[in-house]
């Protein structure tokens, strides 16, 4: 079978499907007796890609397979086709999907504990309807809460090959990173490291800032072996 034919069948199918197709799905397109090998298919996709070098489209491998997509270079022009501005996702939704993506499998309660607020059920519903999130199991604790994970569609939407391609999470710093400052020799102002009894009578939310510092300042924390504990606790 000619390379040109393979290339054209691949192009025809990808453009007709309008969604990513896996190598297996692409192989199914061909008659059984002349089905190309996966290597030949890869070659065909490669050729297609180089044919597109100067064009408005590109071939891209995402999580669920290969697709032909319009280059970002033409986003300004193409977006004029849809005068309604593209949907914006709320911060709540983005934070929720971020937690599910980076921490999967994760329960709803775990999401809530990191975000510090209840998860709006509509957000999970939207994420499930978009097929970005699905239930991947149940945690073996009382109540058997659902464990949530991301789908291939989620990765496809953001053109990611796998979850590892997400931008890296920021590093956590341990509190002791700041210890050099805290363990400075006590300054002239607060040369009395002991807490004044009178301060205890100060209103709970009163002018007690200094006390807070004094009581935690005089000790040399830098020798503390707890960096690791904290980092671990944070995980």
């Amino acid at each position: 079978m000619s390379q040109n034919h393979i290339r054209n069948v691949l192009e025809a199918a990808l453009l007709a499907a309008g969604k990513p197709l896996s190598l297996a799905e692409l192989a199914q397109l061909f008659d059984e007796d002349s089905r190309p090998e996966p290597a030949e298919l890869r070659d065909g996709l490669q050729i297609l890609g180089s044919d597109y070098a100067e064009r408005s489209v590109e071939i891209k491998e995402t999580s669920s397979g290969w697709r032909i997509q319009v280059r970002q270079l033409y986003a300004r022009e193409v977006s004029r086709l849809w005068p309604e501005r593209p949907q914006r996702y709320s911060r709540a939704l983005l934070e929720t999907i971020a937690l599910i993506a980076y921490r999967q499998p994760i329960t709803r309660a775990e999401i809530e504990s990191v975000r510090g607020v209840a998860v709006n059920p509509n957000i999970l519903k939207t994420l499930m309807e978009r097929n970005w999130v699905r239930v991947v199991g149940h945690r073996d604790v009382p109540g058997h809460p659902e464990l949530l994970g991301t789908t291939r569609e989620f990765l496809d939407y953001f053109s990611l090959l796998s979850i590892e391609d997400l931008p890296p999470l920021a590093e956590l710093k341990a509190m002791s990173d700041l210890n050099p400052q805290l363990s400075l020799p006590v300054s002239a102002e607060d040369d009395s490291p002991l807490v004044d009894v009178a301060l205890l009578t100060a209103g709970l939310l009163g002018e007690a800032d200094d006390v807070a510092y004094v009581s935690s300042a005089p000790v040399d924390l830098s020798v503390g072996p707890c960096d690791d504990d904290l980092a671990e606790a944070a995980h």
Partner: protein
Amino acid sequence: MVKPQLQIVTKDSELEAGNELGQAEMPFAMVQGEPMAHVPRDLYIPPQALEVFLEAFEGPLDLLLYLIRRQNLDILDIPLADITRQYMNYIDLMQDMQLELAGEYLVMAATLAEIKSRMLLPRSAEAVTEESDPRADLVRRLQEYERFKAAAESIDRLPRLERDFWVANAHSELRRTREQHPPVSLDEMISAFREVVTRAEMFAHHHVQRERLSVRARMADILVAINSDTFVEFGKLFNANEGRMGVTVTFMAILELVREGLIDLVQTEIYGSLHVRSIQNRELRLVVDNITEEA
């Protein structure tokens, strides 16, 4: 119907009011008749913006992070008393404004108070390790939340379908003929509709509390939008994007303004379009419930 506290203040009475309150020290809100002057300056938020402001936060951790970051402080070394005080001020303000406050905000207030009280207790030198720093757990939560807040932002910046690129589609006659359409019964569709209406009703209850729109605030907005020189088309006062409730609030505000004799509603021909004009004297200045509109 209770008359909204809308008053026209002439130049003279405005001066009086100014003297009484001190032009610079004008309270920005009245709560149960008390001017809210005790809130620190850096907390100033125009009352109408407060709801928007509250909605800008994703919860107590987000609010705390904001307070910390605004002062370029390190999370690892929060001046807890200071931050706690600011946090409490916001909570008080939100409660005073009778905004619905998620319970999580109050839980955080209690947590902060507890940490603070623990920090007041003298501790022996040996016992003080990082672990026993009462702030440690809060710091860990703040850091963790901040990581995912940042991760959410970076996900939002990733190029994505339907915004930055599109899947290429070509027309194919085959699609029409080959794709089998699943059967749908009328009952199925009606039950779907019934369900969506039921759910929407629940959703509506939930929403009302968050998006309470003040008719008086809208009255002020309208008066700002129109003037006594030219007529403004009635329909222009409505913003359909606000949905039914927003439109209704605007409508009620217009009714009130008509009743108060503050605006003129004119229709030049039967079925013609309506026009609105302010009939306030240009010498007059409008003060809506002590909310001063900046000129």
